[in-house]
């Protein structure tokens, strides 16, 4: 055997054996003793020492941390009712579960630690020890092309509403507001929201078309989300049609996860600003995403905010500014159909003052936009969380019932005093989305308390949202940090003079340099 042939054989053997060992449940070779050490240090705080999903932080979380003793996993590549593959477990550990408190551990724990801990997690349930269970990933086809064509999306939409009735839970427009949504519980009896399909960056198993298709094939075990694989087996729909459904669901979210920018740029428009949230002007104005998180700073804290963020747009004319805030909310609160769901939330999410749990009440939805009373000259501004006694903030507050908008001063979370000045607010609710437009004069008489909105300045701004049907009221809310509103001055034509001048001078100089070099070159050649 020549050296080269020998090398070839070695390469072939290595190439063939690598996928083979990867296929043979490699986690059984891992060290569960080391895995236990990693688990106790990094996982038990949420998942509990015994793996029952009952660590000290669990009562603050919705969704709750996974209970490993039942071996029921939402995000799998296996058929409904089956155990997950090792790769499924590793994916959850490595990438985390977006939209929940579970972080991505890749880069935080070493490869070995992550594999050891996955092996240890399997020891919490005897199901994994049962070798008669053959855990195998389903064979998935790949996505058919043309997934963003109108005809494909239309077909996906047909299955969404007619054949499979996704809209029963996920709602007609996919914001998790279907008629069955308020009845949903997981297998452990905890309330569970039907996913808002417009926020794919929060999908636990990932937001790509492939991820969505897999969830449709495997279902989310332990939740009301079923698997639709049997419909293909029964020839009720084809595999391609299920892909079309996945492509339709994907089309409901923006192409990429929204990027958070500090400054909302509001263009000046000719004529008057739109007062209606459904005015066609808004379709032409850039929108900005601001994430909201739970108010976990002052008593009573709130760890399960229902509104994950707001989209904001702004325009102004010579006298008035219009600010449009839109956000996903499953209900037009108060909604009696959601009272039981609200009660379950209040019983599930621990809070500072909730022993015994609060009684569900028909709270309204609310939204607040906050400014300082004056545009600051330096960096100092009022406390972002609704100001203080000594430095109050100026806020616009809207409630869904009674439907009204008021302006006022907040001196803390607890204290809000309305001001007499006029503030117009017009809201519409459409299939799980609130769209609200506030309009106010740029300049007002009460310059001591009401921010004067000057073009060309960075005006600090913050947002707060409450979903009444999730039990949110008072300090139980979603909050943001300070961002900025800029009423952009239109670019005056004079601005173009100096760049044009600079370009003319540069071009002239360039031509002179070329001409001189050529003349010199020609002279040299002549000599």
């Amino acid at each position, binding site marked *: 055997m020549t050296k080269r042939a020998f090398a070839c054989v070695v390469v072939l053997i290595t190439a063939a054996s690598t996928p083979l060992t990867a296929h043979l449940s490699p986690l059984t070779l891992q060290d569960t003793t080391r895995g236990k050490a990693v688990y106790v240090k990094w996982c038990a705080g949420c998942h509990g020492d015994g793996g029952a999903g009952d660590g000290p932080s669990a009562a603050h979380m919705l969704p709750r941390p996974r209970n490993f003793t039942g071996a029921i996993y939402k995000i799998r590549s296996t058929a409904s009712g089956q155990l997950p593959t090792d790769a499924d477990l590793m994916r959850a550990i490595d990438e985390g579960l977006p939209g929940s*408190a579970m*972080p991505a551990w890749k880069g*935080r724990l070493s490869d070995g630690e992550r594999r050891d801990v996955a092996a240890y997690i399997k020891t919490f349930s005897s199901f994994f020890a049962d070798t008669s269970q053959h855990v195998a990933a389903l064979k998935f086809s790949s996505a058919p092309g043309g997934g963003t064509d109108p005809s494909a999306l239309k077909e996906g939409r047909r299955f969404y509403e007619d054949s499979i009735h996704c809209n029963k839970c996920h709602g007609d427009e996919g914001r998790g507001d279907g008629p069955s949504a308020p009845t949903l519980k997981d297998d452990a009896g905890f309330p569970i929201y039907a996913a808002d399909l417009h926020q794919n960056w929060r999908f636990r198993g990932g937001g790509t078309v492939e991820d969505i298709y897999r969830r449709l094939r495997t279902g989310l075990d332990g939740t009301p989300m079923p698997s639709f694989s049997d419909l293909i087996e029964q020839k009720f729909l084809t595999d391609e049609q299920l892909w079309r459904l996945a492509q339709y669901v994907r089309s409901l979210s923006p192409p990429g996860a929204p990027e958070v920018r500090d400054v909302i740029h509001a263009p000046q428009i000719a004529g008057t600003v739109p007062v209606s949230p459904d005015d066609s002007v808004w379709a032409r104005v850039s929108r900005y995403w601001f994430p909201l998180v739970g108010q976990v700073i002052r008593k009573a804290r709130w760890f399960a905010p229902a509104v994950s963020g707001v989209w904001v747009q702004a325009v102004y004319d010579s006298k008035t500014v219009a600010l449009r805030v839109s956000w996903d909310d499953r209900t037009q609160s108060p909604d009696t159909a959601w009272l039981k769901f609200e009660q379950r939330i209040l019983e599930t999410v621990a809070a500072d003052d909730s022993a015994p749990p609060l009684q569900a009440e028909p709270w309204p939805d609310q939204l607040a936009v906050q400014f300082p009373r004056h545009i600051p000259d330096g960096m100092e*501004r009022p*406390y972002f969380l609704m100001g203080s006694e000594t430095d109050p903030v100026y806020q616009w507050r809207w409630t869904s019932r009674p439907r009204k908008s008021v302006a006022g001063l907040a001196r803390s979370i607890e204290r809000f005093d309305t001001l007499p000045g006029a503030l117009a607010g017009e809201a519409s609710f459409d299939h799980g989305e609130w769209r609200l437009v506030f309009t106010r004069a740029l300049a007002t008489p009460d310059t001591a308390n009401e921010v004067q909105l000057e073009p060309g300045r*960075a005006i600090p701004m913050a947002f707060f949202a409450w979903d009444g049907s999730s039990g949110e009221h008072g300090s139980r809310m979603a909050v943001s940090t300070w961002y900025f509103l800029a009423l952009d001055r239109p670019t005056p034509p004079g601005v173009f003079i100096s*760049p044009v001048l600079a370009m003319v001078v540069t071009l002239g100089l360039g031509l002179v340099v070329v001409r001189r070099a050529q003349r010199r070159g020609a002279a040299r050649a002549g000599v």
Partner: protein
Amino acid sequence: MSSPLRPAIRRYAEHPFWQAVGILLLAYIVVVGVVPILPGSAIVPKSVVLQYMITVLVGVLIYVSDNEERWRQFKEPIQAVLVEPRLKVVRAVVVAGVTALVGLVAYGQVKTTVAAPPNLRSIHPAPPAEITFRGKTITLTGLENPLRRYPDSLPSYLAEGKRVYYQNCLPCHGDHLDGQGHFAPGFNPLPANFQDNGTIAQLTESFVFWRVAKGGPGLPREGTPWNSAMPVWEDFLTEREIWSVILFLYEQTGWTPRTWEKSVSGEK
């Protein structure tokens, strides 16, 4: 395919002009792309990038003009672009490109955009000598974690600290104590990263006690108290719970607190 290319590549690699271009490109990539990903650094501001690039350019010019032959070689391609009839198109593109670039830069300079004001913030402002904790005066200067005086009870204090952390600190400071909890993206400044060598590793436990007890609103002005989402924990936790959670922070990250006697930073 590759063999006839190789001499050409070498010709470029050994030519002073293309060496200069390569060095400038490399410097730009390092300043803009590599420096920000180094631990403890941030994105380099545009004006600083410009300064770096000018410095590199001056260095390169000194190098190429240092030697007569090198200088002649360096000028060759420039001269060729200006003169050679066959490079007419290149010449036109260069002149037009430079003109357009100057126009863009000039427009960028005069155009007014509103940007967020710079947020200059002292990350570890000077602590007070003493604080009032729920009506009790605590002297911070020289103070060590009192729980460390009871080594036999440390396991129970650590268990308490762990419980306190997971029930209170986790949403912002995160499972890995790296300031990347699931609520962290909603706040600015971002929650402190305890794994980083610039936070608790640099601090005494009494400093950490002050920051935990008094939170964002207790910061001096240079710490931008109006932005910090850190709660005033004396409203939620007892003195012992705070010392316990501080023990847990150091235990879980492996840092040792800075001590008063020696004032040396912790080692991992």
